[in-house]
């Protein structure tokens, strides 16, 4: 399976950006962005979809840290 070309990469990134914009405007409600999600999944290899999903989670977590600060989880027992 050949690696995506530059055009395919750009198409994938575009679909991803649109999907993410939709999520941003709907407060991460994936149900409202079904169509874009499907477009995103069709344009990008599956591995990339998983990768970008994790990346989005990470970026949101990072933003949360920057705005709200770090609250250590009240886990039972110390590590």
């Amino acid at each position, binding site marked *: 399976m050949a*690696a995506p*070309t*530059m055009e395919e990469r750009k198409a994938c990134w575009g679909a991803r950006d649109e999907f993410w914009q939709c999520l941003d405007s709907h407060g991460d409600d994936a149900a409202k962005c079904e169509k874009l999600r499907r477009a995103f999944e069709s344009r990008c*290899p*599956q*591995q990339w979809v998983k990768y*970008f999903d994790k990346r989005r989670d990470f970026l949101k977590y990072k933003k949360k840290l920057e705005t709200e600060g770090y609250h250590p989880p009240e886990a039972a027992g110390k590590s």
Partner: protein
Amino acid sequence: MRGQGAAEAQTPGGAVRPGSPQPLTPSLRRAAAMLRCLRPVPRLCPRLCPPPCPAPCPPRRCLAAAPGAPRLPLRRRLAAAGAVAGAAAAGWLYVRHEKRRRQRARRLAELRRLALGRGDFQLRDTAGAARSKADFLGRWVLLYFGFTHCPDVCPEELQKLSRAVELLERDPALPPLQPLFVTVDPERDDAAALARYLRDFHPRLLGLTGTTEQVRAAAKAFGVYVSTGPRDADGDYVVDHSVLTFLVDPDGLFRDCYGRSRTAEELARSVRAHMDAYEPLPPAGAE
């Protein structure tokens, strides 16, 4: 018979005379007597030392008892002391220079050993030719580790790398710079795959691949972390790896590394600074 004023005959190593300005220790007196011997027959103490003064040296009184007269002898003494100090300083400077030269030679030998041993690789380029670090000596190298199935990081970094090389190419006074891409996914990234992938970036960007062992050794030589991810149903996977661009000088020595946070302009600026500060290793035996 010459008038010697109030002087009595005295031995050179004699006791302090009454009326002398300061007590002289025996060694100082001997030194002063010696210095007097160095200068011509005294016209300096006409009242006290009638010429010609007999050998051995003229009476100590010339220096000790005549306050107005000793100016010139003092200057001569200072001149002699200055000459000795100057000789000592010159000797010290020479010793220091020699020490530094030896330190430099040791350091150069060390660097040459490093240059040969570290950051070396045995890979193949997209034309199938075998390439090692020795092939790039004499040129600056910007080297990035990545893979063609990379979702976003590698294209962005390669774009940045290409742009930095372009910026540096604009200055004809700068030495040649070779951009290199080494794959961390040799299983999928053969010569053809690399050639296809790298077409979208700088025209001189050269791709390197090899066997799994060769690629693993190259990554290790540069301290690059590589971890192949789990495969999905299609057999597709991503490779987790350190995102670093390395700068290597024409002697094959590692100079700097750049991460995600640097822009193309910052990269170009840093490379240029390294190029300006670069001093080639002299050939072995030249120093």
